[in-house]
């Protein structure tokens, strides 16, 4: 359920009137302003829940089911993603699905960027090599990792062979956008 209708307008993390988007060659980069996030951590000895019927993934994993997905962030810890659910109190919904666990609202803790390829996984792999020091072989579809990117801590999620997501701290969204957009544009320039 969405929040009661209030009259304050949200601002995308990159600060523009609309979420940022860019396309260079086969790659499209989009600010995912609709992504809701809530952290879920088990209480000591607590049972692992299956919020929204989703089996929570193991270390390094990402799993999705419908509008909900989750990735592992540490022992007994996950980040739950609600796609196109940023407009509501997502943490409350997650908490209701995971009684006894510690749930914290993280939606605006991060700015998420979705990178999709129209030419299969090759451009995604080439981009990964320019962004993060992770062996692409260890970041196959369904994998997620926390790593360093341009002196920032980010989550990189391989949602599909041709789809990568990068989430970093919201306050640095402008820097993260610059880094991603520059890398995507350079790949296109190199391919040209």
């Amino acid at each position, binding site marked *: 359920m969405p*929040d*009661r*209708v*209030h*009259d*304050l*307008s*949200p*601002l*995308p*993390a990159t*600060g523009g009137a609309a979420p940022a988007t860019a396309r260079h060659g086969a790659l499209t980069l989009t600010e995912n*302003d609709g992504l809701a996030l809530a*952290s879920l*951590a*088990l*209480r*000591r*000895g607590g049972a692992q829940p299956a919020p929204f019927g989703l089996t929570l993934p193991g270390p390094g994993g990402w799993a999705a089911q419908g509008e909900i997905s989750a990735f592992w962030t540490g022992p007994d*810890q996950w980040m739950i993603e609600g796609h196109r659910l*940023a407009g509501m*109190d997502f943490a409350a919904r997650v908490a209701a699905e995971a009684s006894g666990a*510690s749930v*914290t*609202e*993280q*939606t*605006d*803790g*991060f700015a998420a960027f979705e990178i999709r390829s129209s030419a299969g996984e090759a451009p995604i792999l080439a981009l990964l*090599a*320019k962004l*993060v*020091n*992770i*062996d*692409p*072989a260890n970041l196959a579809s369904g994998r997620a990792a926390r790593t360093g990117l*341009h*002196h*920032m801590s980010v989550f990189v999620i391989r949602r599909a062979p041709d789809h990568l997501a990068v989430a970093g*701290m*919201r*306050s*640095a*969204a*402008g*820097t*993260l956008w*610059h*880094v991603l957009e520059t*890398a995507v*544009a*350079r790949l296109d*320039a*190199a391919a040209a």
Partner: protein
Amino acid sequence: MTRLSGGLIDRSRTLRFSFNGQALTGHPGDTLASALMANGVLLVGRSFKYHRPRGIFTAGSEEPNALVEIGSGARAEPNTRATVVELFDGLQARSQNHVGSLKRDLLAVNDWFSPFFAAGFYYKTFMWPQKFWEKFYEPAIRHAAGLGRLSGEPDPDAYDKGFLHCDLLVIGGGAAGLAAALTAARTGARVILADEDFRLGGRFLAETHPLDDAPATDWIAGAEAELSSLPNLRIMRRTTVYGVFDSGVYGALERVSDHLPGPAKLRQTLWRITARRAVLAAGATERHIPFANNDRPGVMLAGALRAYANRYAVAPAERVAIFTNNDDGHRTALDLLGKDVAVAGVIDSRAGAQAQGDYPLFAGATVTDSKGRHGLRAVEVTANGRAEWLDCGALGVSGGWNPNVHLASHHRGRPVWDEAAQVFLPPPDGPEGLFVAGAAAGHGSTAAALRSGAEAARDALAGLGLDVSLPDLPRTEDAGLNLHPLWHVPGKGRAWVDFQNDVTVKDIALSYLENMRPVEHLKRWTTLGMATDQGKTANVTALAVMAELTGQTIPQTGTTIFRPPYTPVALSALGGGDNGGHFKPRRLTPTHQWAAAQGAVFVEVGQWMRAQYFPRAGESHWRETVDREVLATRKGVGICDVTTLGKVDVQGADAGEFLNRVYANAMGSLKVGMVRYGLMLREDGVVWDDGTCARLADTHYVVTTTTANAGTIYRHMEFCRQCLWPELDVQLISTTDAWAQIAVAGPNARRLLERIVDGFDLSNEAFPFMACASLTICGGLRARLFRISFSGELAYEIAVPARYGNALMARLVEIGADLGATPYGTEALGVMRIEKGHAAGNELNGQTTAQMLGLGRMVSTKKDSIGAVMSRREGLASERRVLVGLEPVDPARPVVAGAHLFADGAEQNTDTDQGWITSGAHSPHLGHAIGLGFLDNGAARMGEMIVAANPLQGQTVKVRVTSPHFIDPEGERLRA
């Protein structure tokens, strides 16, 4: 000089370029050096110290002489080796290190004064008068010496970085490297083949001997075709692996577009390659044999002469001679003859040498001198005491080949001397996982290099559990060098060992006489092996000369050790590409857009950009703005974005106990719906951080930290949770960015907030000082409200999801106009906290205790916490300095932070020092300057007049000691 036949250049296309403004042409496949040579340009630069004319000496990255400046304006790049610059249309090159024209360099006068520039000259000369050094001698020497000049402008090009991972990294694409790559790639292993050249093949490209009866280029083409078809192999041309770092990490510089005309979108990429194994197939560098005046343009390495003839179809002169101590020199003579270049003779130092073709042979002879002002005209050949002059326009010198062991010793392994081959071989204790093959391992013949490359790949991959079968390798030459050592030709003239640094045999002899004999001293005394080439053509020869002088063997004399980078890497590339505003991450507050639209002046606070103050039209000085913001807050209501303060969400059954241990004061006893000020100590008992802690529910707290310590405190808390007390049920996560937090302070704060909350009772009774609650605002937006005050006023902090922060800020200012709602920045924030006597970063500087802050009682004795015990140790407990307020006796005088405090009339020195001023500001509320400081026995000295001394500015101000609470000391305002 016209072109020779053959070669690997594309004669169907012509490229135009210029050298010192002269229009010249070349072909694709040329380097700048080969194209210059093809245009008859032999003189390309001036030497480092003596400004001697210098030419092209090598055909590779080891080049010591042919350093030129490429490009113009901000893109001008000095000290570029012409031998590795791939020719492109429109290339502009200039010679460097001369005053006046290259041919008539005025500083060539240095050569006449060469006795003054001997080894260590700058340690010995210019000693008197001493004060001349900084102002005169050093600038003069710096002007005269050095090579190229930087543009002095910011680098306009784009650089990039990247990360690659592989099973096997093959360094070098010559015979050994290609064999290794083929062997490994056929197993399916992930292989990267990197080569510094723009064309694969290495020495193959410079040689004429066949592989399986066909030209080597045919075999390379076949190998390249196969390699290109394998998805598990990545070929990286124009990529120099310049260093071996820890844990199988290799640094590589890819010159993405240096070979293309015009500015490109990306110039170079710095790659960090993580390789499980690596094969070093970097080949070998030919060494020369120093003789008198051996530095004239036209004197070159013999193998380079061969490379120019075979690969680039060019010779530096129509008539050349060869000086050698091994069979490889003869190979050069034969190849040149095959290209119809006249060979004036082969001067072979070996007495029993035989001619291998139709050329004059001078067996048992040496070259003892040379002639030619701007280029070689003749060499003096001496045999059996008889000297004769031999006319030639170029001389190829071959003293044997030094394996390129550099990368193998990047982890400090010392190369090992092979007496039979007279070379240094790679150290047995080189970097883990690095296997050396081919000429780099001393396997110099083509057949041996191919074989050893394949075997190295097999051995490397065996360690990864991969079963490798060796490929069928082509039949080819397998000749040895039959080298007889000759390290230099003794004689009277100057014989250069290190061309780039103008180090001669005499300089080494002088070093020996002056007892600078260990190689490390030799290097520093003479500058041997420094600068862009790092002595690739000089170091081993210099060692051998020193060994001869000391009567020791070469290994007894020492070895050189190599460090990254193998060849120069631009700082821009090492910097990773981003500069200026994007050099580091920039964090913006949720209200940044609104503040920018108001014309706020921003200040960097760590990575954050915070609004410092909001100037209005007509305000001419920042103080005017800040005073207005402070007074408006104290009179009406001020609004400030305080999102940057760290926020940590703490949950779990043991959250209270956890916080009891982290905070010096008790948090477990905090009532739900209330906030408490908290103090965190370091392990050593000194104050680390302060902030508020709110209890939202029985098992749910929110900790706030200072902006500066947001990251470190969160990390510390995670350490405590994971490592110190894993038995506690507690979960942590940062929510700093998730919530926009806005301070609303001033007597009208409640009235303003009443206009946005959704039916929430803000009365003092329902929501007293230090209360907190979750609520909704503006018709349903979830929010958190904290009644806390940094300014000393009736104040709240309201938090909403960050995306709504901008709109909330605008709303508060808009609907609060009649209440005097005024945005304020960090300056006003700072003034108000000083007026209130609240400690901040200036006070919490890592040296202050709770006691000094007047907060000693906050360190609870009813429970243990981090730092509590240590805070009671004698050294800290006996600390007498405490926080006081300070105001100038003369209200017109300033109070300057950093000034030290002394008793009035006392001598001012460290013994009489009684403390210091931590913070100072103009208080618009009081109308004069105020300050906070730590003063010896301060609590007992209220009203006393003391002196604040600021010797840096020659300032002494009489100040009166007061309470640190300049405003509302009873706290009535904030409880109103």
